[in-house]
């Protein structure tokens, strides 16, 4: 986990992190337009026609919870196949939830900045952490069912 966060804050990885954020914002823009919404994008910033804009910065792209999930899965005694499946599925689920989070924050911010601050900094962050824990729990259950898990007698 420390290695993951240590690498994340290096300038080289931060530039990749920025590109990843822009890609997520682009996906969010595409989804909003697909559902009939009006939105403009400027790099990692989504702009509403009314003037409200929201930027996906470092920490908003769910990379931090992804690192936590990766650390938990990699540290868990399971086969590499199970770990790879858990990582792929887990990261995909977290990113889907994060895009939902970003889009809801985009609309919430147009309605109320107070609610936006609360949901952005506290509520959604906690919900994503809860999702991450539940994703890990699901994965552990699958590992146990597959018989690839440790048990007390071992």
């Amino acid at each position: 986990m420390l290695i993951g966060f240590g690498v994340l804050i290096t300038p080289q990885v931060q530039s990749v992190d920025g590109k990843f954020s822009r890609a997520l914002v682009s996906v969010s823009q595409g989804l909003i337009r697909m559902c009939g919404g009006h939105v403009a994008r400027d790099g990692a910033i989504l702009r509403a026609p009314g003037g409200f804009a929201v930027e996906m910065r470092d920490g908003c792209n769910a990379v931090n919870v992804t690192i936590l999930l990766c650390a938990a899965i990699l540290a868990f005694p399971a086969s590499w196949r199970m770990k790879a499946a858990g990582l792929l599925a887990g990261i995909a689920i977290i990113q889907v939830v994060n895009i939902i989070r970003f889009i809801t924050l985009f609309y919430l911010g147009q309605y109320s900045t107070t609610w936006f601050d609360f949901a952005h900094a506290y509520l959604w962050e906690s919900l994503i952490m809860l999702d991450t824990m539940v994703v890990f729990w699901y994965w552990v259950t699958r590992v146990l069912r597959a018989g690839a898990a440790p048990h007390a007698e071992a």
Partner: protein
Amino acid sequence: MPKLKPQTRFLMRGSALLVGLLSLWWFLLLSPMLYMLKGAAGVFLPIQENASGDWTLRVPLERTLPATPQQPVAQQIHSIDFDMPRGDATAFTFSLPVYWAIILAAPGVRRNLRPLLVGTAVMAAVELAMLLVFAEISARNTAAQLAGGGGDVVAGWARLLGGYLLATVLPYATPFVVALSLHRGLREEIFPWSNVAEAPAPPPPVDRAQRRRAKKRRP
């Protein structure tokens, strides 16, 4: 109605409790919790609250700042003052309602009281410790900037990592770690083999002769 999986039940209950308890915290508990945090942190560091609600912390730090073209004489400093916006201080109170939500969402209502009480005390201590470490890191960052920004690269990286973890990871992750550590029921649900070591020992095996004798004695 089909029975939900324990993970789904936990996710639904946890999400609802997070919305409820974080709203309660945001609208009612935040100010008293900030007041208590300021009081507790004030035992270790002098803290002043401005009219806007922002804090000014004074962190004791002995440093000799080297001479620079602007300041030709080396300077000895004993402490560093820095401002902490109210929003930043708020982050050191929010782990508590998150912890309550996790514990109350965990299976077994009767088993929740003890971890709720013990965990509340643990979380309060952890939040205080996080605030103090954050203040120390911020003071050291300021001292490094005053010294010209150079210095130990590894120490700078460690401060950056510490600040990042304290701002964006630990306040969110700590309640989950503490809940798993203190709530046996939740731990056993996620790691089912963890209860085997704590379970009472099984009765010793009975041999066939003993079983036969016991059968004969029965009417």
